């Protein structure tokens, strides 16, 4: 069974050729008028299992009804999530490659110093949902209400756990502390699971995290929600105020999930996607899943969303600079 090196090389090349051919074979041209004529890709810049991933999977389970074509979720979490954004930004502007992005991937230049692409290379089509950020304490804490928290924060050096530097909970709490003129000590943990474990284990008293990630702890009565950061109250969380209702109008963008495509998307494609998503988010089965995640549907169309982003993006940039996270 002697190996012939040349044979191996030939075989590898042949296999490579077959793979290459099968890939190129998939690309077909289609006129804009027929859009969509084949399946779409929806890129999620996270590994499977998080709130954005789940939102995407719930969305693609109903989207075909309104688009007429299947939509496939593709997870591309590499390069600190920027790989998903770069992939969409460099795709053909035909509307077959879209992404469901958080703001950090939709406008990377606001979050990172070196980025392979910027929001200029993307078309931000519409907002789908907002993942609320929750301010929670352990249930055995003496802090009962948001007012108690404000009182405690008057003493400098209060520690809180968050889901990661520059992520929405961290930025939200920074902006809130600034509004309260309080000095807080952030402790980064690994994602919402890390914050949940730190709260359950008693390693921190206060946590700022994503609402879906802390949900089991809330339902079990291990933690108490003081307030959420979301454009609307969450009906399932009775009596929990939003920061806006409490009188704190932070300029931080919400943890949006936005549909993005490459730049220069034809207007027909934008309109078609926008309309299909608008209908999909009203679908009972999508609404049911979002309800179970305590995630409000917060659809915003292309024009309205673009108008809103003008201010939020600038505010975010300023906060990130104050935090020293970008130049």
């Amino acid at each position, binding site marked *: *069974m002697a190996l012939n090196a040349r044979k191996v090389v030939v075989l590898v090349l042949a296999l490579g050729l077959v793979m290459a051919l099968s890939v190129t074979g998939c690309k077909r041209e289609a006129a804009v008028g027929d859009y969509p004529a084949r399946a779409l890709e929806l890129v999620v810049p996270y590994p499977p*299992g998080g709130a954005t991933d*789940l939102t995407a*999977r719930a969305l693609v*389970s109903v989207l075909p009804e309104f688009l007429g074509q299947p939509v496939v979720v593709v997870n*591309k979490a*590499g390069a600190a999530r920027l790989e998903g954004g770069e992939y969409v930004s460099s795709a053909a502007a035909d509307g077959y490659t879209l992404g469901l992005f958080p703001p950090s991937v939709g406008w990377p230049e606001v979050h990172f110093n070196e980025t392979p692409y910027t929001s200029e290379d993307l078309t931000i089509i519409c907002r789908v949902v907002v993942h609320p950020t929750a301010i929670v304490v352990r249930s055995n804490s003496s802090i009962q209400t948001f007012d108690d928290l404000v009182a405690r924060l008057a003493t400098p050096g209060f520690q809180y756990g968050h889901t990661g530097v520059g992520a929405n909970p961290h930025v939200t709490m920074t902006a809130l502390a600034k509004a309260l003129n309080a000095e807080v000590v952030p402790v980064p943990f690994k994602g919402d699971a890390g914050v949940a474990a730190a709260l359950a284990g008693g390693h*921190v008293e206060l946590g700022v995290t994503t609402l879906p990630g802390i949900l089991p702890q809330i339902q*079990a009565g291990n933690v108490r929600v003081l307030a959420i950061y979301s454009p609307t109250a969450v009906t399932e969380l009775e009596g929990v105020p939003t920061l806006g209702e409490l009188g704190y109008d932070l300029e931080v963008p919400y943890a949006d999930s936005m549909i993005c495509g490459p730049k220069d998307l034809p207007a027909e494609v934008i309109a078609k996607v926008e309309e299909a998503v608008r209908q999909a988010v009203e679908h009972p089965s999508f609404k049911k899943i979002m309800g179970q995640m305590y995630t409000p549907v917060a659809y915003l169309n292309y024009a309205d969303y673009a108008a809103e982003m003008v201010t939020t993006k600038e505010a975010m940039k300023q906060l990130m600079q104050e935090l020293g996270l970008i130049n």
Partner: protein
Amino acid sequence: MENLVAGFAEALQWTNLIACAIGVLVGTLVGVLPGLGPVATMAILLPFTFTMSPTAGIIMMAGVYYGAMYGGSTTSILFRTPGEAASILTSIDGYELAKKGRAGAALAISTIGSFVAGTIGVVGLMLFAPALARVAVAFGPGELLLVAFAALLLLANILGGSASRNLLIALVGVALGTVGLDSFSGASRYTFGFSPLLGGFDLVAAIMGLYGISELISIARNPHGAKRVASVRLRDLYPSKDEMKRSTGPILRGGVIGFGVGLTPGPAAVLAPLVSYFVERRLSKTPERFGKGAIEGVASAESANNSACSGALVPLLALGIPMTPAAAVLMSGFMIHGVAPGPLLMEKHALLFWGVVASMYIGNALLLVLNLPLVGVFARAMMTPFPILVPGIFVLCMVGAYSINNSIFDVTVMVLFGLLGDWMRRRGLDPMPLVLGMVLGPIVEASLRQSLILGSGSIGWFFGSNLRAVLFVLSIFLVLYSVVKDIRKPAKPAAGPAADEKTGLHA
């Protein structure tokens, strides 16, 4: 007990039984392919569970999760290509056995070990989940720092050969682990403006390179030197009485050790097989056989990694905290059905909880029945001629590496680590400390920085809780022990392959 009976009644309903069978079948298949793991598969199956009952949906996803642990050993044993960090140790002794024509025995033992340990894991889960979950979350940043730090030092000693050389290689691993976006300051480290590096090196891609690709390169380098298995006789497909006897203890102990280690957050999947393996080597009357094809090595590592996977379910089911990526996807499965895992699971959804637990007993039995006949099929795959086998595995590895994050960069990382692995192998250097450095380094760093913030920089904080104080003293002791050991018994000048005999960890 009544609960469990009701659970079995639930799990044995047709739809649930079929869901379980589909889950474990799919799990086994994806487990066999290196790189392709349960995480992506469970995510793909998730939408299909939308229309199922919550019980059937969760049973199916859980089936994929533990089913994948059965398949994971196959490529490790046959081709020294571990598809995840948890299978590295299986690949060391397993591959040596395969080269001796005992691939069938190694595969069968790892299947039986997985079954026994999987069952131990389910029993542990059923009986102790709520109590153990509290232990799991008691491991905060301080505790984790001390454990990970102690593990790094201990491993340098345990791996054999020169402790200082192992530590040095581990430090290179730690350095490689720092590449990417720093999660505390947001600074990009060692990325040189090259954005794919922002996410760092993917561990699975690195492992597939260091072990699998380097093996393929070494075969290609010397195709005539590689030993071939001429034929596998039918009676050689299954373990002999002696092999079964020698594996019994390691499987049982591995099952318990793995479950215990599996509870801790972070590096459990890597540490569980390692602890189990070295416990067996210490207990063995013939420790020198470890690393050269000891069936006990396969039995201990494989059983521990299976029960560690049940251990990782404890914090999820009892507290609703997913400590591993796979547990996070499983949690999505609960959430979309409006069932929050956690303390209320057993109260509010008792039938679902016990149904899932019962289905895990059934699933493990199904996996045993499913996998044992496959042993023969896989063992014969060893006889495929090299010119077909080597490129075939190479392509499988490329597909697997790509599928981790759907990223071509990970394929490049795998190939580069393959070249590094080949270089290390020719120098007689063990890649294990490198992998451990990459696994433990980021954990040590993150938990150290968290501890310093939480304790406001005070060392007294480490004595603030009994658990931390004990661990602190223990890790100081380990540092002193390793220093003293190195001074009293200086490592023999280990030049190249000579070291292999001593470490016994090289292929």
